[in-house]
Every structure is written in structure tokens, then in C-alpha cells.
């Protein structure tokens, strides 16, 4: 049996969300604000907590701060019409795993909530700086965190043109995945440090992984090493070495951003996108 707590001061929302996730093996409780929710949480363990942000008495962010003191953490989904970077970062800092904008699309939300029910909560991330112009976090090397961080970083740039958002988000995801997979070996005990700076005329990302780095000269399994007349030569090398298909991330990123720089060891990477 999975226990779900839905917290919202609008009964229409709690009813709608209850309908979306109702099913065999799901027990649903509701609360109208953070105070009522905290009362329930102290007497019962919940697998999933879905909460609004702005509610009377105790708001959603304050509720999450209390929930962080519990020995076991539920999978946390925050839903709010307030999708300002400040609110999204506060929610992430308090370990929200997913942020859904209101008004929400029923089918899409249903899928996200079902996933939250099926999958365990990912390891906590540490948000070192939650300032919209300077975000810094330390993230365990866990695949589930890639989608979570990628989604959050994409939503932070809501005011930028769609193509810029998509390109920098794709580049960020590629380099984050490289850091997690090759630098961190998908070991949740190992951590990646991510920094994101937004200045007036540029976006800057820095990803530092816990690995020993690499050498471009030995990267024959990556597309950046291919001769101009054979764009899939590296795929044969990967097959020979028993590496999964891919090896296109760095090549892809080079075209999606304006600058791509590695440190000497090549276990830290910075990329920059200039804004018009």
C-alpha cells in the first residue's frame, strides 16, 4: 500500500489530484494547509507528498523544511502557480523532487505522479546557493537526479527564448550525464558540484565531477575524434570496447553553446552561452 498526502487550500485541486492518482494500492489523505499536513505526517508515514506553496498558516516551503527533519523522506512533488526562480529554488532546497506549474495538464501530471508513486525518492541534493543569478548545488551521482536537475534548470530560464532554453538545457544535460556516468560511475556516494551563473549577457555553467578526468587524444570512442568523412567511426570503437551506443555528447554540446572549456585534468567543464 502506498500512502499519498495531498496538501492544497483549494478543495477542487485536492479532489482532482485524488482522482488522477486513485487506484489499487493507493491510500490518499488530504490537508488544507501545511499545519494540517504536518499534524498528519507526525502520525503516519507517507510515500509521496504533493503540496501547494502558498497556503494559510504554514506554507508549502515551511512544511517541506519540517519534513526534512524526518528520518525517512517521502517523494516530494510541489505544485504552484508561482513558478518564479526564487520559489522553485526554495522548493528544491527543501528537497522537492519535481515542480509542477499550475494550471497543470491532467494527463502529464498523472504520469509524473504515477512515477513518483513507483520510484523511490532520489538521494538528497545540497543546494549551496539558491540565488536565481547564482545557483550552486552538490548532487549525488544518481541517474534519477539527472532528470530532476535538468528539469529544474530548464524551468529557471522561463524568460529566455525557447531555442536558447532548449539548447543550453540539452548541453547541460549531456555534460551532466557525462559527469555522472564517466566521472561518478553512477555511484550515489560520489558527488558532482554544479554551478550556474546568469549575468546580463551570458549564462555560465560549471560541472565538476569526482573522476580523474580524461584525455581527448584517447577519446577514440567519442564522435569528436571522428575523421570528417566518417561520422560513425567511433561507434565501431565503442562496440569493440563494449561501451553503450552514444559518444555524441561533447560534439553536440560544442554546437549548442558558444564556449566549452575543460580544466587541465578534464574533470571540470565550463560552458557559456552569450545572450543577445
Amino acid at each position, binding site marked *: 500500500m502506498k500512502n499519498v498526502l495531498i496538501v492544497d487550500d483549494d478543495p477542487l485541486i485536492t479532489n482532482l489530484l485524488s482522482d488522477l492518482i486513485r487506484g489499487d494500492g493507493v491510500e490518499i489523505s488530504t490537508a488544507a494547509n501545511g499545519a494540517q499536513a504536518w499534524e498528519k505526517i507526525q502520525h503516519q508515514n507517507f510515500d509521496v507528498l504533493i503540496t501547494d506553496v502558498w497556503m494559510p498558516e504554514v506554507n508549502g516551503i515551511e512544511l517541506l523544511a519540517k519534513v526534512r527533519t524526518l528520518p525517512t523522506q517521502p517523494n516530494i512533488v510541489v505544485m504552484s502557480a508561482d513558478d518564479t526562480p526564487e520559489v522553485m529554488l526554495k522548493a528544491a532546497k527543501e528537497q522537492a523532487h519535481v515542480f509542477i506549474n499550475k494550471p497543470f495538464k491532467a494527463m502529464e501530471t498523472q504520469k509524473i505522479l504515477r512515477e513518483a508513486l513507483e520510484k523511490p525518492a532520489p538521494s538528497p541534493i545540497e543546494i549551496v546557493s539558491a540565488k536565481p543569478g547564482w545557483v550552486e548545488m552538490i548532487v549525488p551521482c544518481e541517474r534519477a537526479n539527472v532528470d530532476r536537475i535538468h528539469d529544474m534548470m530548464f524551468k529557471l530560464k522561463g524568460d529566455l527564448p525557447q531555442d536558447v532554453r532548449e539548447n543550453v538545457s540539452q548541453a547541460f544535460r549531456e555534460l551532466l*550525464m557525462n559527469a555522472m556516468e564517466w566521472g561518478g560511475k553512477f555511484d550515489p556516494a560520489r558527488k558532482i558540484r554544479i554551478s550556474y551563473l546568469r549575468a546580463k549577457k551570458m549564462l555560465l555553467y560549471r560541472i565538476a565531477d569526482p573522476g580523474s578526468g580524461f584525455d581527448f587524444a584517447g577519446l577514440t570512442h567519442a564522435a569528436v575524434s571522428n575523421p570528417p568523412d566518417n561520422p560513425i567511426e567511433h561507434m565501431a570503437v565503442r562496440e569493440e570496447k563494449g561501451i*553503450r551506443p552514444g559518444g555524441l555528447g561533447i560534439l553536440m554540446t560544442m554546437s549548442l553553446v558558444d564556449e566549452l572549456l575543460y580544466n587541465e585534468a578534464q574533470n571540470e567543464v565550463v560552458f557559456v552561452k552569450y545572450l543577445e
Partner: protein
Amino acid sequence: MSLKSSARQVDGITVLDLSGRITLGEGSVVLRDTIREVLGKGEKKILLNLGDVTYIDSSGIGELVSAFTAVRKEGGELKLLNLTKKVHDLLQITKLYTVFDVKDDEASAISSFTK
């Protein structure tokens, strides 16, 4: 969300309608398993309809290349149909657009396979 695949037969060609995300992990595995299953049944003329693919990463594109080479090794043909602008752009920047035979409409894609 993860990748979904459904197969149909049109004039002897296996059309695979893909929808969702092709990313490292679940999505890539679904694509790999689907191609393996189709080839296992002896169906070697495959049209991948990517019209409803909402997101693809480098691993997903690598999986498309892997599918292409696997089918070619079996003496078959694999073509791509209905690329979104994003997938089209990613194939261009990875210099893979010319590797694939890319089609915009199903009827002409079907008739382009070797009889």
C-alpha cells in the same frame, strides 16, 4: 516520459511508431529491444516514425545509429520518418543526417524501400 513503441505492417515494411523520450536508460533500452525483436522475426525493412518523439539525447541518437548498423548488417534497410525540428537539428550538428535516409511522408517512405 519513457518511450513507447507500436509496430504495424504496411506493404511488407515494418513501421515502428515511437512516442516519448529516447534518453540514456529506459528509452534507449526500449528502442534497442524493439529493433532486436523485429529483426528476430526476420523483418528487415524498418521505418522508424519519430514524429511523436518529444526528446532525444546523445545516447538516444547513438541508439538510432546502432539500430541502423544492426539492420544493415542483416542485409536490411532502416529509414527515419517525420523528424521533429529538434531531432533534425541534432542529426545535422552530429553530422549524422547524411548517414540516415530521412523521409517526410509515409507513403513515399514506404515506396522507397527496395522491393
